[in-house]
């Protein structure tokens, strides 16, 4: 009934306009700067529905209602105009108002318009961020900003995401950027107890974010001095606007799946393969009957019967690691304001199931941003948010209990043991205890069914601020912020997990952490001009930050039954500890921007930082930066250019620091070391009172240009970043009793280019197509490590990029006997490399077999709008990096490690003399080619359709009938397709059990990424 009435109303409206008297209006739209015609500008009759667009000569012709008074003329990149309808040709001159250049960009302690920016800043706005079906906002940046490499370790929820801005600047200190939300540095501490890091940024509701600015060069970042070497990410949350109050409701729901799976042997292949491996082993070692042994083991893994001989049971264990994974998110927010007060209030519920069994996450969050003008010279405000995140997690990648390790279990093993009717491995009927030798490994399903591991985080982030105008142009702003994080982890593993826990009657732990991070910023800003040609914008102030943590951890065993899950029931307490730590940072900073003739730009900034982490001798560091820009397009010789709309050259140079080391890293320390129930102590750390800041000198030169009425915008940056005085954990002779000492030794460099191209490809009345391409290439090289090499497989080594893979060069199977062969690669006396092969792995040299750092990364976004419809496609990729399969020695080992099920490619193993293959002969327990080598390295390049959104916005007419302001329906796909040569689960990978600065691109039974489709609606009232 309602639908019909809407239709009737629409019909009435349209007929009404047909009946009315009309008149013809003609005109021409040109660029005010140079008089060139503007093609495709939209002409709209205010108060009526007819519109048109300009022709190739800028002209338009439109029939309008006799009562129409004004036209509105708009065009992308220009300020819209309204003109009164008059007879004769209407001459409309539009002024440039490029949305890029007039766009306000948030920089440290202030804002700037993009046109005047001399540093390098990438901005990602709310439009790109909103409604990303991912736990954490970093996922929404991926592929959208040049020079920013975002990689998620795996598809477990709320876990580590690595962000590298213009490469890695450090070897052993931190490599993650500094995050600042509404002026307050966020703490980003990993508090996980299970060996796999969590991501505390996932406590932030992406839909609350108005914009993310990524400060990439020294000029932009040096105002954050000591912690800016890895770039700074500024997060600005939404604010209310003066005007009608808005109510927005959003909802999406959908399904998630793994992006990929690996191929493993089925039951028949498995039995045949291991019989072959056993026969080969018996040939090599006749003293032991591997064949009979293997038959007895196959029978054992076949639940003690002979079903394995007929492949009667053929279990796809891999499928058991995954679950159906719905995701839903609900948003409700209110915003608005008067000329004195603005507000934004938002709330969100995210309910996400992981693709991995037993993994799910719920987050409840709320925010209030309020600003009020108390006097004409004084404003006060508050930004407050809270979040409660409940994450039911699984073990780290390197645990028998982690679901993906289920792939090691034999396909001949049934899910349910027919002897007990219970999950395989649950009980041994002989002993009544959990089975300790069936299946081949601990069955992770037992942990899924009998373990809970719940991480609850309560987070409050907020700040209060006051802004006072002292005299004209001079303001003082004071901010006091805090970021409080309370985390509790509660784990209980029941009796059936005994084989994994090593204790018979249940085990549990409880861990609590309280972090308080407070920060105050106090600074003056003075904006003034002298005469027509000189503009100044000066900021100076101080900042103080203090961070403290208090933690406790307790664990117990011997529970009366699985019904008791809290430690009060655990009779044997196995740990009870508490600990605390803190650090403080005191800073003085200043920045001066000077603009001459509105086109010569100069910016100088400096920060003087003192950190409690450094040695008494070198506690303070100074971090200056200078940058300059020249807007050439405003010069007389370019002003008249018909095609060039804007051209700016810019360059910057500056120093930033890194202090992401332990809180007491400069001191000589003793720590507790108990023995036999008695308290003891022992030395834990060597002192280094000279320890000082690691610093990075960055040089950046860039060009920003737009042309053809700003339909094409290009930004190119070239940079060099030289890091020196690396905060390096330097190996020392272990005969000293210590393994390493933190020292300022070594240098590394990053060089790269960034390229961004934005184009408006087609603009017509109903259809618009725009593209944005970003491309960046970074070359990282360690130039000096004081002669040391850190790491064995992933290495930090002089002359090489950070994390480079070194191992033996694999040469495949010996065609004569199936032995794994390696190229010796030892140096001959003439300096050449010995390219002969050997089956003795110790005779072969370690050589560079790959690099986990991509040669280049890119993102390509296309948006299409047609009437109410819009399509947004983001393609993202990395190229030229390699991945090492750390699980290869077990899963792709020619059956030589034991009874781990093998990847299907192992079927290509050597079988008879003359076989040419890269898979050595299958030999049970004769490690044949399982040492780290290029056997396990592969190309990690990928191209991914990261996000596709298809949306429909209800027409204004329909909306007004429904009495709503906005309504949008959409379907969105995340990670839908991936093109890659990588054979593992997913090429975006780094094992959560091993990931650190150096260990990158290392796959170890890592959960694949998440592929998502959601259907959503947004309604605005």
């Amino acid at each position: 009934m309602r639908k019909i009435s809407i239709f009737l109303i629409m019909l009435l409206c349209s007929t009404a306009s047909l009946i009315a008297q009309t008149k013809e209006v003609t005109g021409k739209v040109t660029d005010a700067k140079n008089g060139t015609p503007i093609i495709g500008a939209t002409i709209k009759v205010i108060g009526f529905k007819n519109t048109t667009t300009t022709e190739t000569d800028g002209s338009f012709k439109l029939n309008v209602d006799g009562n129409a008074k004004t036209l509105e003329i708009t065009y992308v990149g220009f300020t819209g105009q309204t003109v009164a309808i008059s007879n004769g040709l209407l001459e409309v001159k539009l002024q440039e108002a490029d949305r890029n250049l007039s766009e306000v960009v948030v920089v440290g302690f202030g804002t700037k318009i993009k046109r005047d920016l001399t540093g390098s800043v990438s901005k990602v706005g709310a439009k790109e961020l909103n409604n990303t079906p991912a736990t954490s906002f970093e996922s929404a940046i991926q592929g959208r900003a040049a020079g920013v490499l975002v990689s998620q370790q795996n598809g477990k929820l709320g876990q580590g995401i690595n962000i590298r801005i213009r490469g890695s600047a450090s070897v052993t200190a931190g490599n993650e950027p500094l995050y600042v939300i509404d002026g307050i540095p966020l703490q980003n501490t990993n508090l996980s107890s299970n060996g796999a890091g969590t991501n505390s940024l996932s406590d932030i509701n992406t839909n609350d974010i108005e914009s993310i600015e990524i400060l990439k060069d020294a000029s932009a970042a040096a105002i954050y001095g000591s912690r800016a070497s890895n770039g700074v990410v500024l997060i600005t949350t939404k604010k209310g606007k003066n005007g009608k109050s808005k109510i927005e409701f959003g909802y999406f729901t959908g399904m998630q799946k793994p992006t990929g799976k690996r191929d493993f042997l089925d039951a028949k292949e498995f039995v045949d393969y291991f019989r072959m491996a056993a026969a080969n082993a018996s040939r090599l070692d006749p003293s032991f009957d591997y064949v009979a042994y293997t038959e007895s083991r196959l029978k054992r893994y076949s639940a003690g019967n002979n079903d394995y001989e007929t492949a009667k049971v053929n279990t796809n264990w891999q499928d058991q690691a995954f679950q159906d994974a719905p995701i839903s998110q609900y948003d409700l927010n209110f915003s608005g304001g008067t000329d004195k007060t603005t507000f934004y209030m938002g709330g969100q519920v995210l309910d996400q199931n992981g693709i991995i069994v037993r993994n799910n996450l719920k987050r409840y969050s709320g925010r209030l941003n309020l600003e009020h003008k108390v006097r004409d010279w004084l404003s006060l405000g508050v930004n407050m948010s809270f979040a409660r995140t409940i994450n039911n997690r699984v073990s780290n990648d390197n645990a028998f209990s982690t679901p993906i390790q289920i792939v090691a279990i034999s396909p001949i093993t049934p899910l349910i043991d027919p002897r007990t009717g219970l999950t395989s491995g649950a009980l041994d009927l002989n002993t009544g205890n959990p089975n300790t030798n069936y299946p081949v490994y601990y069955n992770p399903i037992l942990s899924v069914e009998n373990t809970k591991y719940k991480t609850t985080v309560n987070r409050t982030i907020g700040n209060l601020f006051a802004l006072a105008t002292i005299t004209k142009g001079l303001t003082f702003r004071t901010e006091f912020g805090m970021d409080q994080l309370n985390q509790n982890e509660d784990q209980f593993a029941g009796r059936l997990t005994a084989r994994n826990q090593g204790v018979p009657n249940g085990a549990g732990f409880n861990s609590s952490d309280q972090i308080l991070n407070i920060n105050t910023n106090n600074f003056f800003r003075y904006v003034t001009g002298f005469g027509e040609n000189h503009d100044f914008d000066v900021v100076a102030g101080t900042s103080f930050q203090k961070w403290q943590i208090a933690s406790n951890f307790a664990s117990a065993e011997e529970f009366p039954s699985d019904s008791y899950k809290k430690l009060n029931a655990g009779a044997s307490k196995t740990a009870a500890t508490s600990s605390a730590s803190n650090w403080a940072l005191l800073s003085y900073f200043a920045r001066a921007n000077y603009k001459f003739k509105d086109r010569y730009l100069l910016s100088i900034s400096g920060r003087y930082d003192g950190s409690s982490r450094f040695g008494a001798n070198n506690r303070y560091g100074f971090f200056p930066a200078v940058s300059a820009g020249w807007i050439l397009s405003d010069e007389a010789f370019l002003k008249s250019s018909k095609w060039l709309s804007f051209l700016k050259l810019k360059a910057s140079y500056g120093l930033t620091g890194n202090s992401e080391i332990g809180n007491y890293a400069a001191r000589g320390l003793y720590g507790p070391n108990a023995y036999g129930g008695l308290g003891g102590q022992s030395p834990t750390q060597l002192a280094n009172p000279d320890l000082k800041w690691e610093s990075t000198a960055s040089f950046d030169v860039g060009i920003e240009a737009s042309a053809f009425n700003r339909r094409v915008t290009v930004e190119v940056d070239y940079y060099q970043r030289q890091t020196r005085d690396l905060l390096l954990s330097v190996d020392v002779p272990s005969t000293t009793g210590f393994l390493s000492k933190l020292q300022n030794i070594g240098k590394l460099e990053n060089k790269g280019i960034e390229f961004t191209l934005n184009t408006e490809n087609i603009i017509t009345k109903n259809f618009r197509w725009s593209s944005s391409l970003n491309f960046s290439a970074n070359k990282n090289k360690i130039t000096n490590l004081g002669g040391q090499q850190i790491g064995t497989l992933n290495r930090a080594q002089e002359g090489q990029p950070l994390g480079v893979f070194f191992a033996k060069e694999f040469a495949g199977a010996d065609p004569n006997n199936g032995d794994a062969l390696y190229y010796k690669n030892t140096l001959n006396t003439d300096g050449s490399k010995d390219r002969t092969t050997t089956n003795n792995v110790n005779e072969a040299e370690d050589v560079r077999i790959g690099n986990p750092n991509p040669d280049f990364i890119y993102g390509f976004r296309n948006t299409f709008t047609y009437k109410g419809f819009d399509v947004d496609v983001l393609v993202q990729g990395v190229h030229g990096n390699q991945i090492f399969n750390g699980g290869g020695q077990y899963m792709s080992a020619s059956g030589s490690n034991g009874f781990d099920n093998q990847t299907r490619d192992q079927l290509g193993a050597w079988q008879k003399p003359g076989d040419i293959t890269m898979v050595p002969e299958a030999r049970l327990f004769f490690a044949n080619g399982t040492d780290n080598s290029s056997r396990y390295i592969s190309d990690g390049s990928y191209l991914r359709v990261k996000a596709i959104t298809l949306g429909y916005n209800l027409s204004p007419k329909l909306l007004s009938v429904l009495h709503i302001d906005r309504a949008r329906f959409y379907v969105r796909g995340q990670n839908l397709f991936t093109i890659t040569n990588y054979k593992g689960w997913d090429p975006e990978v780094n094992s959560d059990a091993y990931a650190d600065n150096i260990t990158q691109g290392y796959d170890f039974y890592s959960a694949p990424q998440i592929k998502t489709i959601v259907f959503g609606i947004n309604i605005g009232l």
Partner: protein
Amino acid sequence: MKNRIFNIIFLSAALILSSCSKELDTTPFSNIDQNNALKTSSDVEGLLVGAYADLGAADLYGGGAFVTADLLGDENEIFWSGTFQGMTQIKNKTIPVDNGFVQNTWTNAYKVINDVNNVLGSIAVVTAAKQDRVEGEAKFIRGSVYFDLVRLFGKAWNDGTPSANDGVPLKLTPTVELNGAADQIPRDKVATVYDQVIKDLTEAETKLPASNGFFATKYSAAAMLARVYLQKGDYAKARDAADRVIKSGKFKLTQANADGIIEEFLYTRAKSEDNTSEDVFAIQVRTTSGTNTFQTFYSELGRGDISINGPHYDLYEPNDLRLNLINGDGYCAKFDNVYGNVHIIRLAEMYLIRAETNKRLSTSVGVAPLVDINIIRNRAGLDLLSAVTLADILKERKIELSFEGFELHDIKRLGVSTGYFTGGDGLPYNSPKLIFPIPKRDRIVNPSLTQNEGY
């Protein structure tokens, strides 16, 4: 009014800043500064306790140093099915120079040595009445650790000339700060290291009390000396040291319970235990501290990576109660308690040393060899012998101490091949493959360290 507010803001900002610079002088909460660590007697005694904790590290006296010695010395008695590649390499006798287990044994050993060097360096701070005990314990630990280092990383005493063969670097002073090239100390000769070991252990025996809780006693030192002298073939001194331990009367063999399980290895549940009457020295494991690495690798309740092969079973006489220490699935059940203490020296070993050395020297210090062997056999539920040969004694030793870390070292001192007791014909006792490589990481930071042959 406006000015007043500004004044307040500026004043408070100035106040905050002046107090903030003091905030940079933070004090650690969970650790303490080294300058405050060794000020009192109890501080130094606490460091000694910490040294025991480090001695009990998983890859050292937690058991790792012995499990790896058994894997390396084994020919055909055990079956390794574990997934730790480092252990697989040791079992296969193809050890790369960066093997993690080998490296950990080395680095953990020097950590303990630095602990006790610090104790000895601060011995003057210790209350006079306790000085001898503290010094004795520190030297017991240092002597024991150097002994295990030199026999794992150096050539056997009976392989060539000990005074010419490289042993391990001797570091006898505490490290307070780094000293550049002075820290790059070369390897001392095997004989030099043995001399230091004997000196430390002898002084320890002199200074230590007869009873000392679960810490090292006079007899722990004597027992370790017996082991050291036996290893270098100094049978008379080995015999006398073992005799001192037995004669002290402080220890007695445990007996089998009604189920035929020798109580020394009785497994009840995951629960920490006191030393048994048979333990001359044991590393303490508690639910909150320590690791029993034997349990980790041997026990079916641990990783169950090592199972027992047929040739080993063939060593036993049918009624041997020690067969009960191999369970139905073929796993060694000596170490099933995850929180069980690590038995480093048992009284049984002393009987066996005394028997062997008396036999070799044709003496009867204490008692005749036959008596000692029958004590062991009696406990194992076997018939008593009426006469005993050296071969009988060695076989009894082999069975009694199996899987407790003796295989490699006995093969070496006896100058036989791996698999000697089970009829296998493996690597000769002096094969370079039966010696650990010097860890790569240390050779990088200390170029004066030579590498062992074959690596």
